[in-house]
């Protein structure tokens, strides 16, 4: 992290402006004095406050928890989804990562399956539909067996947790040259494939989720690993390998 804690940063911001899904968009340029201790979204808050005081409409951008867990924030910052820091969501990115005089390009996640709704906001509902296609264990609320009746080796539980940590932000899609949703889908397939609870539905899950991923218009994986580099939760591409095995196994078993 940069060490500019006591000074102000003079920034030039090129921010994407687009009034709706069916209109063309373009960059709009603004300059701003920012504090290094601000978060990136707080910096955008200041831009928006200034705009509104001048009677101009603020930029629309998605955000909610602002602590890196809800997956609502997005943005491609200087060409990188969630900006320059590794394993950091946009809301957790701080301006101390930038230098005085920097020019910053801010645009929405771009993928065919993620249409822009307004300015920096995109539609990520395809990700919900992928989960609907099998990203669950079919167990009704009721009285299942005691939780400790099913011991799970710690190593497997930990690997499952590594995969389950996905926040569903879609940065993997935005980073992929093919706009593939492989890492997102693989994280859920892996999480459940690593646990005994997921075993009965292994086949239908792998087939269903992959099929839905294709139907939504996401591209295919060609092993660039950009997804893993962009993932704010450090989800590994090992999960893609695991999903491919699951898919292959399911394809054979379902014949």
């Amino acid at each position: 992290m940069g060490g500019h804690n006591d000074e102000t940063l003079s920034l030039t911001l090129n921010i994407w402006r687009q009034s709706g899904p069916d209109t063309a968009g373009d960059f709009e340029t603004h300059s701003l004095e920012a504090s290094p201790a601000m978060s990136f979204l707080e910096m955008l808050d200041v831009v928006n406050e200034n705009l509104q005081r001048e009677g101009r409409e603020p930029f629309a951008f998605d955000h909610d928890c602002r602590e890196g867990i809800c997956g609502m924030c997005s943005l491609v910052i200087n060409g990188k989804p969630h900006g320059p820091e590794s394993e950091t969501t946009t809301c957790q990115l701080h301006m101390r990562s930038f230098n005085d005089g920097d020019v910053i390009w801010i645009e929405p996640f771009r993928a065919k399956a993620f249409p822009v709704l307004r300015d920096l906001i995109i539609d990520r509902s395809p990700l919900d539909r992928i989960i609907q296609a099998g990203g669950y264990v079919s167990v009704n609320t009721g009285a299942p067996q005691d939780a400790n009746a099913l011991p799970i080796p710690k190593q497997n539980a930990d690997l499952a947790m590594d995969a389950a940590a996905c926040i569903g932000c879609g940065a993997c899609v935005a980073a992929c040259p093919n706009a593939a949703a492989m890492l997102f889908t693989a994280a859920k397939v892996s999480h459940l494939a690593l646990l005994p609870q997921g075993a009965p539905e292994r086949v239908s899950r792998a087939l269903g989720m992959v099929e839905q991923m294709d139907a939504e218009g996401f591209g295919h994986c060609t092993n660039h690993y950009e997804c893993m580099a962009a993932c704010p939760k450090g989800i590994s591409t090992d999960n893609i390998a695991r999903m491919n095995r699951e898919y292959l196994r399911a394809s054979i078993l379902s014949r």
Partner: protein
Amino acid sequence: MNAPPKLDSKVPSGILGDAWTNHKFALPLINPANRRKFKIVVVGTGLAGASAAATLAEMGYKVQSFCIQDSPRRAHSIAAQGGINAAKNYKGDGDSVYRLFYDTVKGGDYRAREHNVHRLAEVSVNIIDQCVAQGVPFAREYGGLLDNRSFGGAQVSRTFYARGQTGQQLLLGAYSALMRQVSAGRVEVRTRCEMVDVVTLDGIARGIITRDLETGAFERHSADAVLLCTGGYSNAFYLSTNAKTCNVTAAWRAHKRGAFFANPCYTQIHPTCIPVSGEYQSKLTLMSESLRNDGRVWVPKTKGDQRQPALIPESERDYYLERRYPSFGNLVPRDVASRNAKSVCDEGRGVGSTGLSVYLDFADAIAREGRATIEARYDNLFQMYERITGEDPYSQPMRIFPAVHYTMGGLWVDYNLESTLPGLFVLGEANFSDHGSNRLGASALMQGLADGYYVVPATVTAHLAGRKLERIDTNHDAFAEAEATSRARFDKLLNINGSRTVDQMHRALGQLNWDHCGMARTKQGLEQALKQVVQLREEFWSNVRVLGDGRSLNQALEHAGRVADFMEFSELMMKDALTREESCGGHFREEHQTAEGEAKRDDENFCHVAAWEYRGRDQQHQRHTEALSFENVQLTTRSYK
């Protein structure tokens, strides 16, 4: 004072441990084939909302679910870090349903209903079983069994966790159950859609009005029951640990349609948050309370000691929680920890450039257990801290300060979780029911899931089968009136065209609440704030500036609608704080404290729930009370010494 008939708590009689079972048996059942004839609207998709919507759909009801984010998985339950309590006694350290019940009643400073809390403790064990069956990856020991940690306010280890992301994993569990029902065609989920009013017919909740946040379109949705699972009101303080879109609007709109609001002054200030760094600050970040298992809280003994923490010798440090509360030490409940941090900062012993923070020091734990162990426990929290502050908590102590985190108050509900507006049920943080005046750590997740998975699916039949519900059409005048009122309100906001932004007004409101209705409250301060909040509201409605239109995605307009409700709500919160002439849990009135500065309850006059009735625009709220009786737990002064 006698409770008016409207406040019938429906608490079952008989032995505490049998009450819930007997009550469920007495509730009517609905034949599975008939359930699909009932439509249930569920607002909010956090732990309570997602679990309720999924479970009701599994049972066969027709469910419509609404959330304001772009996916149900974003609800703020996802941010809960530490864990979820359950009386499993897997550690064999003396835990039991009764002990969890007892700890929760005591932790709530004897301002919760015994029966509700006991039910919560009973179903806590089912929740863990259910979540594990869903594939929630809880932390495990090497033998493959579930691990537990201890948490504030308890001396047993009963907290289940999934690293520092327990809320996320539990919510994703409930979300996956919900997605399964969507795929089965039993639930329709509406995302980016905000509830703006409840529609009532013959005094019964029969639907809602929503505004589509993408298109600005108002829509009418009829229902046989409406469930509000819309969270708390911490963002009335502007700065809080809540997500930015958390709001009181759904609850407040329901309140104005007849649902009483209970104990709004019970707000929880969480002791371990990252301190404010500047005036642009948009929210505060919580560091899980679990950090207090290994971190030691201290400030310098001497006022104004500016030395780096490492240069302050052991003998000149005041580990004030360990000193004042030797048996609970750093694990005292949240309200006690927060108030003590405030008092050492008020004494001028706070640290950091603002003097508004205290140290949370891991040096001893790292020396004792090794860095690897501490990393395994808290690394994601440590990383989060470093990202925000630029300081490395492995090599220097964290700085923390309390922040508004959770609200125990909420819409009044009876034992069935039904509000005073029949047909309107309230779940999770949005209701007032289980935490009294202070919530213990790892209990919010427990309550949200208890309400959604187990309580409402059983109790909603009392309404659905117990009342005759006429078929209702959204062309009915009641829908037209509610929609017109909502439309007019948004149009008005767009046409004020004043000079202050919504955010500026929200910040001003937050400061007022923090200064006078925050960690410590006084009669004088509250009286003054009550006048100011009325002025602020008037200014809002005459001088706010909302640009853009109402026919497309307009975040400033969304925010304006919510701030307008926070303005009205804050007045009630202050009134409640002013009326409750005692200190209990998260409500600390400076006039009511012991010689040692601890909260002084007044059980003779205030051992009750205060439930406020809205009586119209130009009328004062009316305060009703529901007496609390303690038949199983002795009312004592809470002591953690």
